[in-house]
């Protein structure tokens, strides 16, 4: 790249980054509330309409990782790698069963996290703290993974410049300081405004790079001719792996605390459902972008660019290589910035949810006298600290390992299915049973991962079985369900007795999140007609 184009590209990148920073800080004034309250800071005061919910869901779920790593997987493994985008429609369909119901309960009772729900339903201290800690720890590698995406963008942009790796490291630290600053002041509002910008830029970027690549290779059909057959179809021996890997992601997707966090920010369950429905469409440009993992093979300039990177980590540079070699410099700068903030926005929401979990479900559990403001302050500081923990993880551990940590993280987070999703629909489980099932399946899951990798470097999360290779997350989820159900049947006593009055502690209206809109009378009215079906019947008869 000539110096003039390089200047043009980096100038566009920097100017747009400044716009992003402005939006982030401006977020504090957007649909203003009282940011000293945790739910207002973390859930944007539940003021996100259908459009903003759509943008935030999109930004939160379609991360820099999915923009960079799925094309990488397709480039390396062919059609099998496409599982990373083939599950998208199922993710939002599955979420439709549980998340609007969780949203409604959260709204009625003032929950901010999934742990709040577990606490309210099962009581006690061990289970909700355990659920919160699982969320906090499994998010660390997920944030780290976003950072490796950011690194890839910076590395491809700075390729060939003097001391590029130092510049990349310093830029990353600066970006994170700014991110921590506006997450602290604006919470989910700042992230949401950033999300709108991110989504728009990513769509422009993906469409531009798809069109440019198709022109370069002569269309979908000619672009695939002569390439290995792995690019056309999934090898039949991998069908079970393809299927169970998708299932694992579908079930775990909305158990991730940051996704629950973003969903609970919606203004109404209806707006949430609309946002979910439309978020599926986001997958179209993404799927086309992921197919570039195939077509890049036919773009000599991009292949030449890729040869600057070690063969083992080349895949993640597929999209940046096409952006830089095929697009005009200004558009390349815009596209790279889109992918860059595509990593920053989800990282911000992830850190916000970590802050929530630690303040609300861990610290407050042991310091019950904590004020509303104190809780929010701890959450804000913790979210800043967790960003830098993840950054430290990335600087300490090579990127190739971080990727595997994410897949292991998903094996852990999927085990929250009985505690959170299934508990929305049944009172039959006993909390001791859930605790045992979740803990056991996590331990067995981690052991199977180590065993499948012969106790060496982690390169796979599939386990060979007589049925073919299966995703370990799904195998141990089955174990979890079995243990939880069996123990619930054996342990004496009734399951959860449906509550009539909001219990003390975190959801007590007296100490509650917002005395005016979450008042005691309203909470108890809603409790008596807890099932949406009931209230609907009533509405129908009265209407």
């Amino acid at each position, binding site marked *: 790249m000539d110096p003039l184009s390089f200047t043009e590209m980096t100038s566009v990148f920097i100017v747009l980054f400044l716009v992003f920073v402005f939006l982030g800080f401006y977020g504090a004034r957007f649909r203003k509330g009282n940011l000293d309250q945790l739910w207002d800071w973390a859930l944007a005061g539940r003021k996100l309409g259908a459009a903003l919910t759509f943008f935030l869901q999109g930004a939160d779920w379609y991360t820099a990782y999915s923009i960079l790593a799925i094309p990488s997987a397709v480039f390396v493994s062919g*059609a099998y790698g496409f599982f990373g985008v083939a599950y998208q429609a199922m993710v939002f369909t599955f979420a439709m069963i549980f998340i609007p119901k969780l949203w409604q309960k959260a709204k009625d009772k003032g929950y901010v996290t999934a742990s709040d729900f577990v606490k309210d339903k099962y009581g006690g201290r061990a289970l909700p703290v355990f659920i919160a800690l699982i969320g906090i720890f499994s998010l660390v590698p997920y944030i780290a993974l976003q950072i490796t995406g950011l690194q890839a963008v910076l590395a491809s942009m700075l390729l060939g410049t003097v001391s590029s790796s130092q510049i990349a490291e310093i830029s990353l630290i600066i970006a994170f300081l700014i991110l921590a600053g506006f997450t602290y002041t604006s919470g989910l509002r700042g992230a949401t405004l950033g999300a709108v910008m991110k989504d728009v830029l990513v769509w422009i970027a993906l469409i531009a790079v798809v069109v440019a690549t198709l022109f370069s290779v002569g269309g979908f059909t000619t672009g695939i001719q002569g390439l290995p057959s792995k690019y056309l179809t999934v090898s039949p021996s991998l069908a079970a792996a393809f299927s169970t890997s998708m299932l694992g992601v579908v079930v775990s997707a909305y158990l991730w605390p940051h996704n629950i966090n973003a969903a609970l920010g919606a203004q109404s369950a209806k707006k949430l459902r609309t946002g979910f429905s439309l978020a599926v469409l986001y997958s179209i440009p993404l799927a086309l972008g992921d197919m570039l993992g195939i077509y890049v093979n036919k773009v000599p300039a991009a292949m030449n660019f890729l040869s600057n990177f070690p063969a083992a980590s080349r895949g993640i540079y597929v999209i940046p290589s096409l952006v830089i070699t095929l697009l005009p410099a200004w558009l390349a700068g815009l596209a790279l910035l889109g992918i860059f903030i595509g990593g920053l926005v989800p990282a911000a929401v992830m850190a916000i949810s970590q802050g929530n979990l630690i303040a609300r479900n861990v610290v407050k559990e042991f310091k019950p006298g904590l004020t509303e403001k104190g809780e929010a302050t701890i959450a804000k500081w913790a979210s800043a600290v967790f960003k830098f923990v993840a950054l430290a993880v990335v600087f300490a551990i090579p990127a190739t390992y971080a990727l595997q940590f994410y897949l292991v993280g998903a094996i852990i987070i999927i085990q929250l299915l009985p505690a959170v999703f299934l508990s929305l629909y049944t009172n039959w489980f006993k909390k001791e049973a859930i605790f045992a099932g979740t803990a056991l399946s996590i331990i067995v899951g981690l052991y199977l991962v180590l065993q499948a990798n012969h106790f060496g470097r982690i390169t796979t999360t599939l386990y060979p079985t007589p049925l073919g290779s299966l995703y370990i997350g799904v195998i141990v989820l089955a174990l979890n369900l079995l243990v939880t159900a069996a123990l619930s049947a054996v342990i004496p006593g009734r399951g959860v007795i449906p509550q009539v009055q909001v219990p003390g502690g975190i959801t007590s209206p007296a100490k509650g999140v917002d005395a005016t809109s979450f008042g005691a009378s309203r909470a108890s009215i809603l409790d008596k007609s807890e099932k949406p079906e009931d209230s609907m019947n009533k509405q129908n008869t009265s209407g």
Partner: protein
Amino acid sequence: MANKNVLLAAIVVIVFAAYLWPWYNFAQPEILGIPFFYAWVILMYVVTTMLLLVYTQAVRDEKEPGQIGGE
């Protein structure tokens, strides 16, 4: 209401049948030049979105602010 749950269950079955097992794993026929495997995945996004929007419209039990006291 039972009806909306049946509708959602039907949509879940359709979408999962469309995607979960890769029975659509073949190269031919191509759609707009895209091998069938990829084209199917992309086409079904549009179908899924329409189904989910139908469901969203069908559910009218939202407790919007102001409605709560009126039960």
